[in-house]
């Protein structure tokens, strides 16, 4: 299968000043020489503990921050040379916290509508207000939300519904690749399952590819065929999810799998 996104020798270090007058800087290697690729139509899992650099990779791909070294290629073109519009058109992101990722002062219609309008502008279509509204309703329907919520505000919705709105916003751009940065870790278990199944449905329907970031190994095993395990900015294991789960090679991965609460198996 063809590579959709390819990452080569990516490095991102953060420098922290130690003390007020000290010139010594502490270096945090958030992403340390990482290479991997996401294939077309695949869900690639990325697991690791908090602070292992998972979210930094997500931000590097969507260029909210810039790497010190290394290159990212999208369909063989370097992302660094993309305009913001071109990048937005192809790569979108679903955020972790559905309460922080929606502007509390804007209505759902505005939040999704502005993305639809940006997409129309990029593709050169000129759409009337009515057409934009119709498009918003179509998108809301695909993520399983009622279509009469255009003038409602984020605070009127539950966590799961907000996450659906966040997904709708990402979909509104009709991207090829979605970076999902722990999209379910702040939701409760039954809602998690709904959102996961929604993502799987959308993947089939729109032929999407995902980079699915999580710290829950079970979840990643269920969702993705291939996965990466990150530890302190490095990829320590890479391969088929089933295999890694059954027979982890790396010491850290073994610990990670052992740390899954056994109570789940009793139920």
């Amino acid at each position: 299968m063809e590579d959709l996104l390819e990452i080569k020798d990516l490095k991102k270090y953060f420098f922290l000043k130690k003390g007020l007058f000290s010139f010594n800087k502490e270096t945090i290697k958030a992403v340390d020489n990482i290479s991997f690729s996401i294939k077309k139509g695949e869900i690639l899992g990325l697991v690791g503990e908090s602070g292992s650099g998972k979210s930094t990779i997500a931000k590097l791909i969507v260029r909210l921050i810039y790497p010190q070294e290394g290159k990212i290629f999208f369909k063989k073109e370097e992302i660094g040379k993309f305009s913001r519009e071109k990048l937005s058109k192809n790569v979108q992101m679903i955020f972790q916290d559905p309460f922080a990722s929606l502007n509390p002062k804007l209505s759902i219609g505005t939040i999704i509508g502005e993305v639809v309008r940006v997409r129309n502008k990029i593709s050169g279509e000129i759409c009337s207000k009515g057409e934009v509204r119709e498009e918003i309703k179509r998108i809301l329907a695909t993520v399983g939300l009622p279509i009469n919520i255009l003038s409602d505000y984020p605070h009127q919705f539950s966590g799961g519904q907000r996450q659906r709105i966040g997904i709708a916003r990402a979909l509104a751009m009709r991207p090829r690749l979605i970076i999902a940065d722990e999209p379910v870790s702040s939701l409760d278990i039954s809602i998690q399952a709904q959102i996961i199944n929604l993502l799987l449905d959308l993947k089939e329907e729109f032929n999407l590819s995902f980079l699915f970031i999580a710290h829950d190994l079970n979840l990643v095993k269920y969702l993705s065929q291939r996965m990466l395990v990150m530890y302190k900015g490095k990829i320590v294991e890479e391969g088929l999810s089933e295999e890694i789960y059954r027979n982890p090679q790396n010491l850290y991965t073994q610990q990670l799998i052992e740390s899954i609460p056994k109570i789940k198996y009793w139920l």
Partner: protein
Amino acid sequence: MFKVFWERFKHNKLALSGLIVILVLTIQACFAPFIAPYNPTEQNIANRLSPPSGKHFLGTDELGRDVFSRIVYGTRISLSVGFVAVGVAVLIGTLLGLWAGFFGGWVDNLIMRLVDIMLCFPTFFLILMVIAFLSPNIFNIMLVIGLTSWSGLTRLIRGECLSMREREFIQAARLAGLKNNRIIFVHLLPNVFTPILVFATLGIGSAILTESALSFLGLGVQPPTPSWGNILTAGKDYIHTAWWLSFFPGLAILITVLAYNLLGEGLRDILDPKMGDKNG
């Protein structure tokens, strides 16, 4: 949203009384010709310095003009100076604060050094100096007060924006490929509305005070146009014989500034999300 706000507002007695006083003052300013019993500039030398009576509600001044009518007309000056000056300050302060907070880097540095410079000047003496060079008319006063009082708001808004910039909804807006201007004015601005409102309300009070002080020093609104400050100035020469001449305009300033401060403080309490919902 507005309903919750009003529920809380109703229970805040001080803010409510502030609002009522401000409404009364506004009506007084709008309908001054109907409320004032005399022409504020009409002189009646025969009847000069007469104490408060049935005929002249708050007495007359050294030229026999009705003090009550003059105070009523003075409301127009004070309120319009307050609104326009604060309007100018809010416009500049908000814009610079949003830019500094959103762009960061050298833009932030430049704007914040400008703020530091503004905060270095003793504002009142700066205003005095500028007015002394320009001609002391009401438009210059409004403009100069506005141009010297935005720095506090800029700091406030920059701080809010700095913390907001890292929030996920701003990142999402960037990822959606929105233009900077759209992010600043559609996504950031509504979220810093509370500090702007509080600043504006408190700012009107202090702008009115500054205008009165300028007029008192003779650099403000020029006689015979009545302003609370210049009525006060005229009164200071007669303070031992005609106390009403300086007492009532002083009282008017006090009540007005107090009303705006109460409303401002009340709004700050009501709109603070950390207050909880104990009233609404």
